[in-house]
């Protein structure tokens, strides 16, 4: 089933075009990686999908409904968003933070009900954050905090989950934990996940589809095996590197002028 459809979408800031005639469709229950150099429009793509910005041309549809035609609460029941590492100004507890996900479903009520509490508890359990539910966000480690934000997205109970570089500040163990958690969400809860990342190798290992954005409005879309070949990565990112294969999947190590295994 096609859940998300981009139809000839163009967007740019001032005189700088970023995305041009982007057309693609996302099947329900798939795991996408959005990859590309800085400024190639990865975050813009997410913002267009979440309805934060409107396309200058073309349309973005979710469930055959134009995203720009929905109101904020309707969108919040379709799409949830996890951003990069972030600490709010005031010291909300983990539980309070995750409870905010229920806003779109309770916006006329001032207080949460039993169903809200149950959804929050389930989300905390699924992300392994229940043990520190009463602690303030600022007292957690980066990995714990990011799991809390994923819990919040889960408690929002949306079919689509967007993540903007959720692992960029995390160490290797926590990066893998987040990707495992997301894969679990996809397979067990049927979520459709779109994730912006700079980590090509993790994308290859975990994702079903890749959207590779170039800096000159070009884009490539398909299974990671096909899209992420070394020639294309080298030309789009302007780096050289080494591509190999572990067992099934490819990997890519970028190499620079002073690398010990420098190219050439």
């Amino acid at each position, binding site marked *: 089933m096609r859940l998300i459809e981009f139809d000839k979408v163009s967007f740019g800031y001032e005189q700088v075009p970023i995305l041009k005639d982007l057309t693609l469709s996302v099947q329900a229950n798939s795991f996408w990686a959005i990859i590309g150099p800085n400024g190639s429009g990865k975050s813009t793509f997410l913002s267009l999908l979440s309805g934060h910005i409107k396309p200058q041309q073309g349309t973005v549809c979710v469930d055959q409904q134009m995203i720009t035609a929905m109101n904020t609460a309707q969108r919040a029941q379709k799409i949830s968003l996890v951003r990069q590492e*972030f600490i709010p100004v005031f*010291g909300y507890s983990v539980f309070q933070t995750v409870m905010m996900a229920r806003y779109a479903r309770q916006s006329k009520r001032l207080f949460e009900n039993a169903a809200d509490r149950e959804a929050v508890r389930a989300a905390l359990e699924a992300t392994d954050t229940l043990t520190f539910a009463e602690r303030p*966000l600022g007292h957690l480690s980066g990995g714990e905090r990011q799991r809390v934000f994923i819990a919040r997205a889960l408690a929002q109970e949306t079919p689509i989950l967007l993540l903007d570089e959720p692992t960029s500040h995390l160490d290797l163990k926590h990066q893998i934990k987040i990707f495992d958690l997301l894969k679990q969400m996809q397979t067990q809860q049927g979520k459709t996940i779109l994730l912006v990342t700079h980590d090509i190798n993790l994308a290859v290992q975990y994702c079903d589809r890749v959207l590779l954005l170039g800096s000159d409005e070009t884009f490539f879309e398909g299974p990671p095996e096909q899209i992420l070949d070394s020639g294309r990565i080298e030309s789009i990112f302007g780096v050289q590197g080494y591509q190999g294969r572990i067992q099934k999947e490819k990997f890519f190590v970028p190499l620079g002028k002073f690398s010990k295994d420098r190219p050439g």
Partner: protein
Amino acid sequence: MTLTPQKLVLRSILAGVVLLGVMAACVWIGSQDVSLADVLKGPGGEGSPNIQYIIFMQERLPRICLAAIVGAALACAGVVFQAILRNPLADPYILGVSSGAGLGSIVAVLFSGTVIYGRIAGHFGWIAEATGMSSLMIMAFVGAMLTVWLVWVIGRVTGRTHVTGLLLAGVVVNAFFSALIMFLLSIARARQLQSTMFWLMGHMMLPENPLMVWFSGGVVLLGILCLLMLGNSLNILSFGSDDAQSLGVPVKRTCFLAFACAALITSVAVSLSGLIGFVGLIVPHAVRLVVGPDHRLLIPLSAIAGAAFLVVADTIARVVIAPAILPVGVITALVGGPFFLILLIRYTKNIQWGST
């Protein structure tokens, strides 16, 4: 730990009882001894008025009520501005209310004798009659609201949801209007100067008309209730407008509503009492340290705590150099500063210094 309606109501009632206790205690303190027995004797006869009764009914009681109204408004507005600007340094005056009200009141003082002013005041006399406010208060209110509107419009130009633009606009407008105030003060005559300076320092004025207490109290209560209904949205807005939007908060509308209500109650407070600093900055932080950052609890409790704090501060201002009266703004800073430091040390483990 979730916030239930029972918990909210219980804590508000508890805090409200404490506030009433504070007000009931402070009303008997002053340069003149007044006892309950004296007051209960009634206003007295034609030839022998009961002075105690008159002091109590016409000075103490309205003054205490005004202090409570102003304190509640300032503390509550402080909470809201800190939330929508996502800035713990924000206070109710940060977006131009203070300088706007100051300018309005100074214009009222300087031009009150002129023909044009008299003619305009004549046209709007019904407002003064309906609200019980003096023309100085009305001018301060109008100045405050106009300035906040100006800041909002300038802030909007820099981006729909960027609070930095709003903050900068507030700072610049405040600075510009402060310069205008200085200019007007420097050409004012000595007699006019004194009443303006008192106003700028924060000074409870005695209401000439009891209607004013009812009117301003009603407006402030209504504003606080509106803000309480936005409690959930304000919690989410603390995470930034992007997060808020993706969680389903209509950011533009919520910000505008919260901003308008907070600006309205601040303007009412400022026009009643001049510039009383510190309440709107300190009380929200103090209450947040004790009860946590949930705005559904923070808004009513800050309002009540602000009211109690200003009632106490005003009582101190009345007695410390009695029979003369200190500007209450002096007391709020002198008392509020150390009090806040104690809280800060006591609850330091609850604090989290986040990034924006």
